[in-house]
């Protein structure tokens, strides 16, 4: 997926840059896409100093995170650490009190629509229309992402195949199993290839098949150059995705590195300690990160 200087996606389903048919727009190197907006050395997602306050509580408190093209960042942290709020801020669903988010070089507050056109978002909770079929969901979200006619049909076919939804494409979402609903939701976020993917705990409660299918598609998209933010509680998924890990605590990132660099003991300590009692230590870790 390429983006022009105005933030307009210029790589289409007809000419993707990844693992699908790629007649013209092949990747120059793993993790980099041709014509990336901010230059290959600059991140696709750059969030700086985000602050979001709900009823006096700081859901985000100086949240800073950047993700490069082709990189998968596993966002981990206890419930309430700010993972979902961060995704909502990046997607423009909530406005931060302070800080700035740039997607593909575009400020998400100044140019929200152009920025949203560069991302696919899969929210934590399943949000589908019970009476609409799987195919109708894919058609709707594909069309809203800008896919038309043959490109839309091909994208629907591809994602239906990749997410193993062929047998239920004509079924209303209200009649699907939990795993099928999860896969359908993920498919609506992944139907259009986008430079940035925001996946908020997409495998919570998912069966092994759903998890495997989703991880395969995410890895595929990252290979194609997408930057991926993958919020999860499951560290083995991040190992499988070869993701770097960013640990969120009390509304900010307190550690970042590979699983090997962070070590399981340190991760366990970061993910289980109280944000209040370890506040000072968090701040030290945040500076180090």
């Amino acid at each position, binding site marked *: 997926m390429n983006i022009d200087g105005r933030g307009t996606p210029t790589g289409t389903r007809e000419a993707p840059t990844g693992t699908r048919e790629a007649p013209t727009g092949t990747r120059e190197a793993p993790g980099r896409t041709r014509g990336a907006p901010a230059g290959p050395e600059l991140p696709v997602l750059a969030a700086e100093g985000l602050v979001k306050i709900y009823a006096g509580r700081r859901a985000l408190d100086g949240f800073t995170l950047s993700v490069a093209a082709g990189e998968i960042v596993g966002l981990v942290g206890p419930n309430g650490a700010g993972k979902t709020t961060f995704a909502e801020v990046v997607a423009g669903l909530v406005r931060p009190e302070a800080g700035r988010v740039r997607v593909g070089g575009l400020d998400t507050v100044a140019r929200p629509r152009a920025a949203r056109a560069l991302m696919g978002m899969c929210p934590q909770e399943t*949000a589908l229309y019970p009476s609409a079929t799987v195919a109708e969901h894919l058609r709707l979200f594909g*069309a809203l992402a800008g896919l038309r006619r043959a490109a839309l049909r091909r994208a629907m076919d591809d994602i239906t195949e990749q997410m193993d939804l062929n047998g239920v494409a004509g079924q209303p979402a209200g009649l699907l199993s939990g795993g099928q609903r999860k896969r359908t939701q993920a498919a609506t976020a992944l139907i259009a290839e986008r430079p940035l993917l925001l996946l908020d705990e997409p495998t919570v409660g998912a069966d092994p098949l759903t998890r495997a299918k989703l991880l395969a598609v995410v890895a595929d998209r990252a290979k194609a150059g997408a930057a991926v933010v993958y919020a999860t509680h499951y560290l083995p998924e991040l190992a499988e995705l070869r993701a770097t890990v960013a640990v969120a605590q009390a509304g900010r990132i307190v550690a970042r590195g590979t699983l090997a660099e962070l070590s399981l003991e340190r991760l366990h300590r970061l993910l289980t300690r109280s944000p209040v009692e370890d506040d000072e230590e968090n701040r030290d870790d945040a500076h180090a990160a």
Partner: protein
Amino acid sequence: MTLTLPDAGLRVTTLARHNTMLMLREPGAVISRLVQPLVLITLMRPLYVAALARDGVQAGTSQVVTGMLVMFSLLALSVVGTGILTERSWRTWDRLRATPARAGELLAAKALPAFALLILLQAEVIAFGAGVFGLHIPDPALLVVAMTAWAFALLGIGTALGATLRSQSELNVAYDIGGLLFSALGGALIPAAELPGWARAIAPVSPGYWAMEALRSALRGQAGPTVRDAAVLVAVAAAAGTVAAWRMSRGLPRSRLL
């Protein structure tokens, strides 16, 4: 090949088609609102004709047709509001907001099928009155003006309520009690002139009052009063629509159903 941002018109068309499909998949409320006024017009017309005998048969027919039209189109607001509330309870509204679609586009796409339903309901009632009971329509164009203005007002009110209230029970209270109250105050059940003095004094507060006035004026072929009353309805629509757009652009409150 270059992929440009999808055209706003295409997005609205896509979303409006989707919303129409959702409405037709759960047709119970729509069917109910379309059938009920026809039944009541048929059963209650003799009563109204007798009550307004001094003004002629047309007066009774006009009263029952316009009265049922206003009352059931107010009750049909539930279809508009429920369409918005379900987006909140399903959490799909935020998913749509995370797409490149503008808030105004999402709102327009919600409004279009509801507007079509409100026009259909009014056209059906008028056609039934004219075809079955000989309702005289001196100037159809005036009637179209009145019906369109009323549909806009209903749409604005329904959308504002749907965007503001948090649960289906709140919506039911607003639509059922509010609908009946506004209908009665507006003179839909009893001619406004026959209402108690205090009710006549506050009747103009009800949008139903202006709808009844606009429809009556249109059925009398009075262009000036029809346009004046329609203008009041359009103002109501604009005010309510502004509230709805402001509320929806900030994200809808989470439903209490969850």
